[in-house]
């Protein structure tokens, strides 16, 4: 009854609620869509991963941890986890360093900046599906880049090399950096450097020239200006790049699938490849779902500490 006493009051209150919470209201639609398309679907995947659904006919009866146990016991999946860890770390390192390096070079007052920038960015324009093939050919040990390298007396086996460095024996696999991954890493870094280059160029453009000049004026060396003044400013950008690249590396599929596939002895296999094949080649839906859930957990392991670290910095 009281509500009816003053219609205007209700409207005013509604209005001021809207204004006070405008920020939340703007974000809300995105949150709702992401809730459904991400979290509900993950829940579904989680459910399937505990089920018996390993043929065409949907069968959601509970199977406990069986799919996970089988997965972790398989040579292939153990190799995948190892490959994923090394690939992610080196890929992210490579892309951020290369992007930063090239951005700083292009920052120098040079001619042909336009041309260089486009050369470094064009790989991003290409579909992984075809660049994978081009790189497979380039790293073919018989007829690829080795034709040039042989003149310097080296001819690596690239992705046909099944060596694992240092190759500690762990469960069923040898643990360490699979040498065969290096070729895939080069291809992936080649393709994605353009992005970090663009991000860093945008970031550098936000740092006023005066700041740098002031630092130089204070007698700081170029290197010191870079590490003490510029790098800290680029921190949020680096943070963004690292997350984006982490996301790409954990899901990497097309490039590796077309370039090397699983590779000899699974040295270049990735969880996403295994999942795709399990789900759509073998119809092991539950096994495929279990792989996705493990992948998500790996993300958590990487990302959550990172999120907390960022909070402390802020």
């Amino acid at each position: 009854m009281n509500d009816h006493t003053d219609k205007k009051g209700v409207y005013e209150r509604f209005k001021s609620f809207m204004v006070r919470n405008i920020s939340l209201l703007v974000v809300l639609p995105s949150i709702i869509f992401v809730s459904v398309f991400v979290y509900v679907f993950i829940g579904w995947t989680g459910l399937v991963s505990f089920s018996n659904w390993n043929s065409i006919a949907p069968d959601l009866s509970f199977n406990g941890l069986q799919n996970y146990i089988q997965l972790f016991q398989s040579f292939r999946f153990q190799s995948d986890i190892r490959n994923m860890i090394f690939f992610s770390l080196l890929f992210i390192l490579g892309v951020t360093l290369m992007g930063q390096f090239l951005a700083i070079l292009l920052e120098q007052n040079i001619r042909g900046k336009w041309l260089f920038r486009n050369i470094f960015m064009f790989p991003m324009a290409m579909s992984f599906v075809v660049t994978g093939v081009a790189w497979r050919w380039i790293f073919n040990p018989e007829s690829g880049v080795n034709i040039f390298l042989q003149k310097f007396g080296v001819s690596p086996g690239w992705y046909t090399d099944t060596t694992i460095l240092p190759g500690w024996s762990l469960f069923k696999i040898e643990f360490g950096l699979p040498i065969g991954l290096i070729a895939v890493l080069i291809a992936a870094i080649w393709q994605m450097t353009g992005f970090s280059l663009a991000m860093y160029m945008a970031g550098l453009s936000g740092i006023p020239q005066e700041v740098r000049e002031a630092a130089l004026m204070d007698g700081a060396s170029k290197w010191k200006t870079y590490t003490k003044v510029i790098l800290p400013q680029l921190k949020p950008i680096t943070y963004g790049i690292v997350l984006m690249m982490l996301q790409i590396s954990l899901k990497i599929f097309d490039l590796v699938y077309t370039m090397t596939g699983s590779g000899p002895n699974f040295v270049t296999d990735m969880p996403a490849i295994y999942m795709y094949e399990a789900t759509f080649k073998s119809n092991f839906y539950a096994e495929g779902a279990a792989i996705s859930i493990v992948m998500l957990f790996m993300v958590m392991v990487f990302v959550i500490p990172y999120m907390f670290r960022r909070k402390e910095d802020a």
Partner: protein
Amino acid sequence: MKLKLIYASSVLLLFVLLLTACGSDESNSANQNDNSDSENNGSGTTELEILSWWTSGGEAEALNAVIDGFGEEEPNIEIVNAAVAGGGGSNSQAVLSSRLQGGEPPAVFQAQGGFDLLRWQEGDYLQSLNDLYEENGWRDVFPETIIDMNTIDGEIYGIPMNVHRNNMIWYNKKIFDDNGIEPPKTFADFFEIADTLQSKGIIPLALGDQNPRWSTLLFEMALLNELGAEDFSALWTGNEDFDTAKIRSAVNTFSRMLDYTNENHSSLDWQDAADLVASDEAAMLIMGDWASGFFMSRDLVANEDFGWVAAPGTEDIFNIVNDSMGYPTGVENAEEAEGFLAYLGSAEAQAEFNQLKGSIPARTDIDVSDFSEYSQSAAEDFKNLELNLSLAGGSPVPAGFLSRVDDAINTFVTQRDPDMLINSLEEAKSLLQE
């Protein structure tokens, strides 16, 4: 203050509007484009979709020829060619499984004959074709092995379109002639030849196992040689032991074959390996008979530049790789779809399709005198030899089992550990007993 409110609500509104506006816009264009949702449109033609992975080259020409041929007979039915390539057919399977599960089936789809096709029946997604077989007298024209392969409990679920043979060695005639070598009949011959060639710096056996399936094919040849067709196919019932002397011997043979392959095999696909043979760097290639089409595209002449012979110990066996067409449940316009299926099994369609694809018809009553030299000899063998379903061709085993085999073989090629391979086969055996 009011301004903010208007802004806020207009952004929300925009978000919703954009979605709905796009939606209504799309329903218009959907009508124009005529997808599977709207199979009947005003002009009175009916649309049927055929889902396959025949997207390029001779395969695509073959499919289009069949579609055109049917169009001449039934101008009121439009066949939509929904071919999807990539991932060795797994993209097509991703599309098929999501469409069947989403209740949007194509009218006809391609699968490999046998388990690859029949697995869809586990989800009751297939319709029996027994009536079509009776009406068209197909039981008499397709070989029994081929019909049985697509049959569960007396119900036939597939129409075989084509047949390839994959227990073949393709060899470089020039290399063989120059070195005075005859094509091998047994593995003893094979290894003798291989030693001779290797000592002369020629790669005896070209292999491109970037896709591990092509190593699996080598293993299959060794198994087939050791076991013969009957015991070989008995393995896939799941009741046989994999740890036997014969299988261990086959593993050993396989391992020896690998010793004679090119070092960079894991960096090549089968085309690259075939190129090693075409460019006189390697002498032999074990591959399905689609290789003959590839050699001809390299301007090589059959029986002059390249020759073929059955893999050692398998000259009496025709190892089948086959594609069959399935008919999903819930297809609209069933009458028209069945008309199309009947056409796919007809002599006319099978002749035209296979000539363009470079395979041979699954029907044995078709005149192949216009076909290539190799195809003619293959068609003859198809009638006379013992038919066996190829493991690497995916017909005799569930796809899940085959991918476990591929995984085990991939590991074996590097590690050469026979116990590990046989253990993996034993572990995967449970997938066979269903």
